[in-house]
């Protein structure tokens, strides 16, 4: 492993060669940046991974059941397990999806579950991402390149090969395919995750399409050739947010959608990966109820824990939050990407008062969590190793069966005093090794 760490710069050079980047908009300008890679991997023992695997499969299966229920009978609301306020006021709940059963009855085909490990070794789920979670391509290509840079490391350690992600993705797409080609739709070259879209298309042998390449005719979705020929699309892995995918159903001003796509989907003539409307299940407010969903739908005890969470919506919780603001992390449920996250202990007295007023005024908008002192992982900085906060995004793929990818995206903060690991806010990434023995 020493050889790999010593040659971390070589890996980053190869990353630059292959354009391993993500884009951000600063002052209205699109800029692409290299996603900084740290060569020291996060290592999960086989036993640890197996435990995580069980918990993740359980969680995603319950979330898929929840999504079906919400868009059909809503039994979980009728039974008083999840309050209807949290469902119908969620920005992710889409009434246009009511009654639709997606091909294969699968909603979240690709789930990105964010976890942290506390210093006592306990894993906590911080967030479920069930819309279009990104990040799998980075550890995929990192593994390819680190094996080139330090083959001896991989000869010595018994690391499960993670380069099967593309095959897993292909299987998931094939499983729900309604007859036709597999397509990955990107909103365009200047999307933050464009590298990932194009890399996954290449590796999963899917067609990378731009919205203008697709059209609907007779309630079927087609990819058009430059000669005028066309091919039916059976699965569309769309990397475009719900509200933009079809201007006839959602935002009429969207230029990155396909008109009438929802009609095709509603008729069962194309599988959309992931299904529209999933946002209702990965809402930060709904997160609180996921352990209850597991018991409700599966009749099992949750294997993985949520971070201790309080809902300002409940009076008792709200009072607790307001009394303990300085030791909690408060999250705005309508924000994502690390935005809208406030650590109470970093606020001045005046800022705490303002936040308290906002919480009292719009309690549904906020949740608060105990700050988990999660473990640091070492990263290389210059010629030394320094500890930094890191999380893990695990990828769960639901096809014929639900599987957890034996790897994941470990993101770390590059600032010593920061808990924010998001790439859009300057974080870097590591490969995640799962040991095979």
């Amino acid at each position: 492993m020493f050889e790999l760490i010593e040659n971390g710069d070589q890996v980053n050079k190869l990353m630059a060669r292959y354009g391993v980047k993500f884009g951000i908009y600063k002052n209205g300008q699109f800029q692409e940046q290299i996603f900084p890679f740290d060569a020291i991997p996060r290592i999960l023992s086989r036993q640890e991974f197996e435990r995580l695997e069980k918990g993740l499969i359980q969680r995603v299966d319950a979330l898929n059941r929840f999504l079906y229920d919400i868009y059909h009978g809503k039994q979980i609301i009728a039974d008083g397990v999840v309050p209807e306020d949290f469902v119908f006021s969620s920005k992710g709940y889409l009434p246009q999806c009511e009654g639709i059963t997606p091909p294969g009855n699968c909603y979240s085909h690709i789930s990105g579950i964010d976890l942290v490990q506390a210093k006592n070794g306990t894993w906590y789920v911080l967030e479920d991402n069930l819309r279009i979670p990104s990040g799998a391509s980075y550890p995929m290509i990192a593994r390819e390149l680190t094996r080139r840079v330090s083959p001896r490391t991989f000869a010595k350690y018994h690391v499960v090969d993670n380069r099967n992600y593309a095959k897993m993705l292909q299987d998931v797409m094939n499983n729900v395919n309604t007859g036709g080609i597999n397509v990955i739709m990107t909103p365009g070259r200047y999307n933050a995750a464009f590298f990932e879209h194009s890399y996954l298309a290449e590796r999963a042998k899917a067609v990378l399409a731009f919205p203008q390449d697709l059209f609907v005719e007779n309630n079927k979705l087609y990819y058009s050739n430059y000669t005028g020929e066309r091919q039916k699309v059976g699965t569309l892995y769309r990397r475009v947010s719900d509200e933009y995918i079809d201007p006839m159903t959602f935002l009429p001003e969207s230029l990155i959608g396909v008109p009438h796509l929802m009609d095709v989907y509603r008729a069962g003539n194309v599988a959309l990966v992931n299904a529209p409307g999933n946002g209702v299940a990965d809402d930060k407010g709904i997160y609180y109820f996921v352990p209850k969903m597991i018991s409700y739908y599966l009749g099992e005890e949750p294997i993985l824990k949520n971070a201790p969470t309080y809902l300002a919506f409940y009076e008792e919780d709200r009072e607790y939050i307001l009394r303990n603001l300085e030791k909690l992390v408060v999250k705005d449920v309508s924000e994502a990407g690390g935005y809208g996250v406030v650590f109470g202990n970093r606020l001045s007295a005046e800022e705490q008062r303002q936040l308290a007023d906002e919480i009292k005024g719009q309690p549904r908008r906020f949740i608060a969590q105990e700050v988990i002192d999660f473990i640091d992982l070492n990263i290389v900085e210059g010629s030394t190793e320094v500890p930094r906060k890191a999380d893990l995004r695990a990828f769960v793929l639901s096809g014929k069966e639900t599987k957890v990818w034996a790897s994941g995206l470990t993101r770390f903060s590059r600032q010593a005093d920061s808990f924010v690991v998001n790439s859009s806010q300057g974080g870097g990434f590591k490969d995640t090794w799962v040991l095979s023995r």
Partner: protein
Amino acid sequence: MGIISLEKSDRLYWLGRYTERVFTTLSVFFEYYDTMIDSDPQAYREFCWQLGIPDVYGSKEVFNWKYLFDEGDTNSIYSNLERAFNNGVALRDELSSTSLSYVQMALDTMKRCGSSRHQHPLLDLQEVIDNLYAFWGSVDDCVEDEECRNIMKTGRYTERLDLYIRLDMDFRWIEKEFMKLRNRITKVQLPYDEPALERIGEIILREKDNWKDNRYVALELLENVL
């Protein structure tokens, strides 16, 4: 894959054109740069005139920097290479990451040399030439879809013929490039102006002795073939 969208066919064609533009103009720039070292410091003016780009440089020093590296100059090598890259990056699934990496490396080299105010461009920018050579070799090996390769090569030979005519290259090369374009264009399903191509053929192949009288006609026709 076997199916190429209109957007992709356009990008493939222009990827072919821009990579060729960078490759050929940079190679010729090397010759002019050499001349300007100790023979004719104004030689760049002829270069600009031949390519039909405005001579806004004023001195060889400004030309040597701006023509190579100025992001704001739409005629610069950098701008053309960036356009090649912007087309290529949207085609990763067709080209393969391996092929695309050579265009990425060429662009990175341009950026690196541009920011370090190079003292020896012929040495540093040889890497750009090498990477573009490697790119075309890789395309032949890694791009599975023959249609894709043919569209790119149609773009490449169109650009090459255009530049060879402008730069008054050896007539045998011009003749050869025309034959390559004519052969390639029939292998793709891009709509093209057949009479225009035939007229270019007449100018180049049948009016050999005085073909230069009609070079601008040929260039104009070529611009409208596709």
